[in-house]
Structure formats: structure tokens, C-alpha cells
């Protein structure tokens, strides 16, 4: 009883605070009418203050190479903004205001996504967010938290189909990464047509990325005429996959597809090598494992011969010369050679956001007003925007990559090879 009373007072206090805060905002009174009309109002950037962007990427833990690679892409894009692609070490400006970046970690999990998104969303000055790295950190979590607050979020590397599917798509969510309905189909075509294999098994880790991707793969593989013998699932954090692999090996599938992440992906790669029933099976993963860290985790001798799919960096259809001659040298000079494959998508995502802010921001003296819904609408109106990865046109479901080329590479001597297969896929809409 006592406790409940306490809660009631707390709730009352919360309501009062909100009322006072609302009155305080109204008191300013000088905001342009676009802000009054906007459902979520404006971000008000006072004279001399900076426009704040957020990033919510996985920057610690076993999957950090995935997130850091995107983080560096974002930082470079901010640096090059307004200086015609020159990297001068200082962030560009929008209408006389600096742009700053506040970074949080998405932890590559729903928990991490919730914590990071809440932290960023609590800051009313955050205009837009680049993130998340992992679909699990976005789906139903970060995408919803930001959408509820009217903060636009553009992901450079979420590929889970559910994020932009009718019914689960959140209104303020967009992505520059390919949709896995392209990638899963490409891997299935590769296995069935290119390698000529007829039976396959899949393993996912319960994350929306892995589950969605293996399902697209399985559906495509089956429709091509192949047989999917088993679709298994494992626990993140487990280390012993002998039981699940033994189970799968009873059907001796020719192709074993486990599009999961670094830690478990490395262990499955090792342990599958020791299972006799899988001795002849071809192993494959996807972009969650497309990093040297996965090869290190699996051990080079085990990783050799495994196929990995991901965005084809060699067939970007956008500003390829800039990518090869300016971006990559600048990236390498500042951060070392890229450790993963989504830096270009992060660059494009950031430029989309900056361009949209520039187009909707209203100058009132030295103060800048950025209407939130108008910003979202500007992002969704993106059409034929030439980035590095291609010509970006954002669909109403948030997919800004209407087509993408997926490459399949393999591992030789502990390093990724050039693409052994490459396929251009288009989103059917």
C-alpha cells in the first residue's frame, strides 16, 4: 500500500513536470508556424549552438568491428560535409551551425538498442540518429523509441527484412543498407545454381537479422527446387554447438548456411569441421561475419573455404571514383584499413540526413528551427540521390536501396578473397 502511494506521488510529480515543461516551451512564442504545425515540433538550435546528431552503433564487444566501421564512415561524412569532399579534420556546418555527433553503443542486442535509444531520445536536441548496426537493436526497439519521439533514424547496416516490412516498419525509420530479401535470395542462387548443391540446412541465433535472412534463403532455395533439411536455432553466448551440428549432420546437407555473428559464427565454423557428417558440407555465412575478427575467431585454417556474402564493394553504382580515390585513402589514413563492409552505407546515410536537414531547416535570425516531421518527409522524399553505394531512392517502407549487388567471397589463407560470385538484386515492391 505504502509503495503504491509513493508511486502515485511520483506519477503526479511527473505529470506536473511535463505540464510545467510544456508551458515553458509555449512561453517562448517566437517559433515559426511550421513548428506549430509539425506534430513533433521543432528542434531549436540557438545562435552559436551546434546541431546534434546521434549515432547508435555497436562499438564494443565481439561485433565492434561492424559498428566501428560504420562509425568511421559517419565521422568522415561529417568531416567532409560542406568542404566538397575535403577532409580537413573539422566537421562541416549547416547554415552557420556546427554539426556534432553524440555516440551510443547498440550492443548488437535488443537490450543495448533500448538503452542507447532511450539515452539519445532523452536529449531533445538530437535531430536525427545514424543507427543501428544490428537489426536486433532496432526492430521494435530503437526504431519505435525514436519514431515515438519524432526522431529520424537511418541505419547503415540493418538488413533484417522485418524492419521495412508492412506492419512492423516504424514511421521514422529508414536504411541505406540492402534488404536481406535481396541477400538471402543471392546466397540461395549461389548455392543452387553456381555451386550446384541441392540440399541445405540453416542455423540462426534468434536475432531478427539471422532469422529473417535464413528464412529468405530457405524460401528461395526451396522455390529453386532444392531441399532445406533443417532450420536450426542456437543461443547467443553458447559455446558448444556439437549437439546442434550432430543433429543437422544426420541429414548430411550439402550446404550449411549460418548467417549469424562473430562469436558464435566462429565457434560453429570450428566445430563443424570436427563433425564427420559435415565433412563434405559447404559452409557459408553473411555480412554479420564479414570481418577479419570472425576469421580470427574461427581460426584461419577453419575459416578457409567458407563462403561469406555481403554488399559488393567493387560494384557500387554511385560515386565509385570518389570511393576508391578519396574516401578509402582518407579512411585508411585515419583509422587503418576498413575492417567491415558498411562504411560506405554509413557515409551515404549521414549525407542523406545532412542534406535533408539543410533543406528543411528554417533560419530565424541566428536561430535555426528544424521541424521533425518535415525532416522525416524530406528523407522519405529522397529520390535519385547519388551516394557512394548507388542511386538512393527511399521507398515508403524506409528502404533507400531499391537494388543492391551482393557479393559472395571466400577465405583463403586467413583472408577474404575477391568476389567469387556477384548478383544484382532488386526489391520487388
Amino acid at each position, binding site marked *: 500500500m505504502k509503495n503504491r502511494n509513493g508511486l502515485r506521488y511520483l506519477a503526479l510529480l511527473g505529470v506536473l513536470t511535463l505540464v510545467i515543461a510544456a508551458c515553458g516551451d509555449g512561453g517562448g512564442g517566437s517559433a515559426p508556424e511550421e513548428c506549430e504545425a509539425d506534430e513533433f515540433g521543432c528542434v531549436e538550435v540557438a545562435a552559436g549552438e551546434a546541431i546534434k546528431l546521434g549515432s547508435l552503433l555497436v562499438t*564494443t*564487444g*565481439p561485433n*565492434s*568491428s561492424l559498428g566501428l566501421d560504420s562509425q568511421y564512415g559517419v565521422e568522415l561524412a561529417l568531416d567532409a560535409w560542406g568542404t566538397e569532399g575535403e577532409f580537413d579534420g573539422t566537421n562541416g556546418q549547416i547554415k552557420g551551425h556546427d554539426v556534432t555527433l553524440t555516440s551510443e553503443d547498440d550492443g548488437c542486442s535488443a537490450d543495448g538498442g533500448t538503452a542507447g535509444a532511450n539515452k539519445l531520445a532523452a536529449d531533445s536536441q538530437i535531430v536525427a540518429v545514424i543507427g543501428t548496426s544490428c537489426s536486433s537493436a532496432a526492430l521494435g526497439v530503437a526504431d519505435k523509441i525514436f519514431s515515438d519521439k519524432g526522431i529520424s533514424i537511418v541505419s547503415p547496416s540493418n538488413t533484417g527484412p522485418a524492419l521495412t516490412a508492412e506492419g512492423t516498419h516504424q514511421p521514422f525509420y529508414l536504411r541505406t543498407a540492402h534488404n536481406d530479401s535481396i541477400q538471402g535470395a543471392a546466397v540461395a542462387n549461389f548455392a543452387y545454381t553456381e555451386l550446384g548443391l541441392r540440399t541445405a540446412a540453416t542455423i540462426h541465433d*534468434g536475432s531478427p537479422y539471422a532469422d529473417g535472412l535464413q528464412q529468405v534463403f530457405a524460401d528461395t532455395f526451396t522455390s529453386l527446387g532444392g531441399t532445406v533439411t533443417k*532450420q*536450426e*536455432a*542456437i*543461443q547467443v*553466448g*553458447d*559455446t*558448444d*554447438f*556439437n*549437439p*546442434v551440428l*550432430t*543433429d543437422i*549432420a*544426420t541429414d548430411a546437407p550439402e550446404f550449411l548456411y549460418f548467417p549469424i555473428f*562473430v*562469436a558464435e559464427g*566462429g*565457434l560453429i565454423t*570450428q*566445430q563443424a569441421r*570436427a*563433425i*564427420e557428417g559435415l565433412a563434405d558440407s559447404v559452409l557459408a555465412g553473411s555480412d554479420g561475419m564479414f570481418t577479419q*575478427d570472425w576469421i*580470427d*575467431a*574461427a*581460426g584461419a*585454417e*577453419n575459416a578457409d573455404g567458407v563462403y561469406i556474402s555481403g554488399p559488393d564493394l567493387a560494384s557500387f553504382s554511385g560515386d565509385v571514383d570518389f570511393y576508391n580515390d578519396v574516401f578509402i585513402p582518407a579512411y585508411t589514413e585515419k583509422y587503418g584499413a576498413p575492417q567491415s563492409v558498411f562504411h560506405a552505407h554509413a557515409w551515404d546515410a549521414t549525407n542523406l540526413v545532412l542534406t535533408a536537414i539543410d533543406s528543411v531547416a528554417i533560419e530565424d535570425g541566428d536561430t535555426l528551427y528544424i521541424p521533425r516531421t518535415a525532416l522525416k518527409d524530406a528523407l522519405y522524399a529522397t529520390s535519385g540521390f547519388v551516394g557512394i553505394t548507388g542511386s538512393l531512392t527511399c521507398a515508403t517502407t524506409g528502404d533507400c536501396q531499391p537494388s543492391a549487388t551482393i557479393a559472395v567471397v571466400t577465405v583463403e589463407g586467413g583472408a577474404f578473397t575477391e568476389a567469387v560470385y556477384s548478383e544484382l538484386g532488386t526489391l520487388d515492391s
Partner: protein
Amino acid sequence: MTTNSTSSRNYRVLLERFPVRRTILIVLSVLIAYGVIAGTVATLQTGRFTTADWVSLFTAGVARGSVYAIIALGYTLVYGILFIINFAHGEVFMAGTFTAFFIAQALAGQGILNEYPIPSLILLFVVSSVVSMAVAVILERVAYRPLRGAPRLVPLITAIGASLFLEYTFRGFYGAQVRAYPNIDILQGNIIIAGFSVQKAQVLVTIGAVILWFSLFMVIERTKLGRAMRAVGEDREIAALMGINVDRTIVSTFAIGGVLAGAAGILFVQLFNSVFFFMGFFPGIKAFTAAVLGGIGSITGAAVGGLVLGILEAVGPILFLTGFGIPSPNQLQPIISFGILVLVLIFRPGGLFGAPDEERA
């Protein structure tokens, strides 16, 4: 007032006639037994798995159970003498294993690892054990000794704090990446035992664990230190009066637990070649489960608990659940392991080898 006390007396009489707790327990055990048996029969009827499959699942379970058992000894030793749960033990295990990784990598880089596998392995065992022992001893000195007189909840919270501290300290030292232990060629592949093909690494791990367990057993039962440890566990004050150096005995207990954890780590990486800063968490929790399952404080209990848990985890999901047509049964493996923990705590709070009435854990 009178009606109140009458109704409560009636209630009590009713309770005595139909003991709710026991009724629930009986219903529960019947349901579980039915589920397990029905699932097993249904799975076996599918004929999906050959005897060789079951043997390979079983040996994988024995191997992982052996590692649990050796880590569990660390929990059990400390509990037996101090009655605290050292939740940082998983990180003691990680510390040695992760440090030895760098030696293993250097040895592999020089080709020494495969040229002289046995001396190399011994070196790895020594390095890992020494580091883990050092961490365990420092842990005792810094985190537990100042709290020796405090209520039991206090060292428990400290243990959780120490666990996080160690995890992130080692992340600072060695980075957040997952690293692969270099393979030792002579341990790759399978050998034939009694007509069944078994992974060599699993055989090595099981034999190694038996040797470690037996050495510990001899230390506890046959040496002066072992006698001192048992005496301190029995009654710390009387032991002190009998001239036993309690502090030194407790430090030795932590040191032995650390050595075992470090050695278990080298066994662990022969099975699962990955190391990273968080690697101690799940094995630590599983080993704790094993220790409780066997009866915390009992050395035999730790061994049996570890093996039972390992085997049930490996064989259980497939054997019990496949028959029901449950998709991806292996994802439900934690239900088996932690379900066992719950059941043991319900039916036998003292564990398999603990006193039945003991409810200290």
C-alpha cells in the same frame, strides 16, 4: 478475534490433511517424468538418430561436463570453507585462459606448438594456472578478506562487482575481440574407441579432468593442508584454537580453486577454441549450477553434477524434445540446464551429494 483464530486453525488443519507443497511436488514430478519418457520414446521411434549419433552427443556432453566439473570445484571449495559463493570464479577461469592464449599464439607462430605439442601444452597449463591462481588470491585478499565478518549477502554482492571488474579489466588488457586458440594438430580428428568414432580433443579433456579431480581429492583427503581445509570448513574458530592458520588455509583454498580454473580453461579451449573477455560468464554460471546440482561443498558432488549437467545439456534437448516435433530443440537447451537447477532446489535443496535437509545454498 475469535472467528479469526478459529478460521485460521481450520485452515491449518486442512493444510495438515492436504499438504499443498507435497501435492504440488508430486504432480510436478509425475508431469516431468511423463514428459521426459514420452519425449524420449517418441524421439527414438523417429529413428532419425543412429547409435553413433547418440554416442557422439554423449561424448560431447561428457567432455563439456568434465570442464564444468573442474570449474565447479572452485565454487565448491570456497563454499565448503567460507560459505560464500564466489561469483567471480568464472572470471578467474577467463583470466588464465586468455593470458595463456598469447603464449599459445607465440608458440604457434614459431611452429613450436605442433612440433612439441606436449611440452607446449604443459607450458600453457602452467601459465594459465599461475595467472588464474594469482587472480584468485588477489581477489580473496582485496575483495573477500575485509568482509569476512560481514553478513553473507555482502560478499555475494562484492563477488558480482568483482566479476564485472575483472571482465572489463581484461577487456582493457586484451581487447574486446574474440580470438581463436591455435589448433594442435595431434588433437584434431577422431579416434575409434570401442567401435565408435570420438573426437580426440574430447578424450583429452575427459582424461585431463579426471586427473585434476583425482589430484584434488588426494590433496583434500591425504595432506595436512587438506585436513586444515576441512577443519576450517567445519568450524573456523575451533580450527584456529587448534593451531591452524586460518588465513593461510583460506588463501590456499582460493589458490587451489584458481589453479583448477586455469587448467580447466586450457581443457575448455581444446573443445571450443575461442577466448574473449566475456567467456567466463556462461561456463561460470553452468559450473555453479553443476556445483549446486551435486551438492555445493561436496567434491564428489561437483564432479557428478558437472557430468550430469553436461550430458543432459548435450543429449537432453534432442532426446526429450525432438519427439514432440519441437523445431530447433537445441535453442531450448538453457531450459534443460536451468530447469534442472530449479528442480534440484525444489526436491533436494542440498543437492545430490549434500545433506538432504541442508538449505544453506
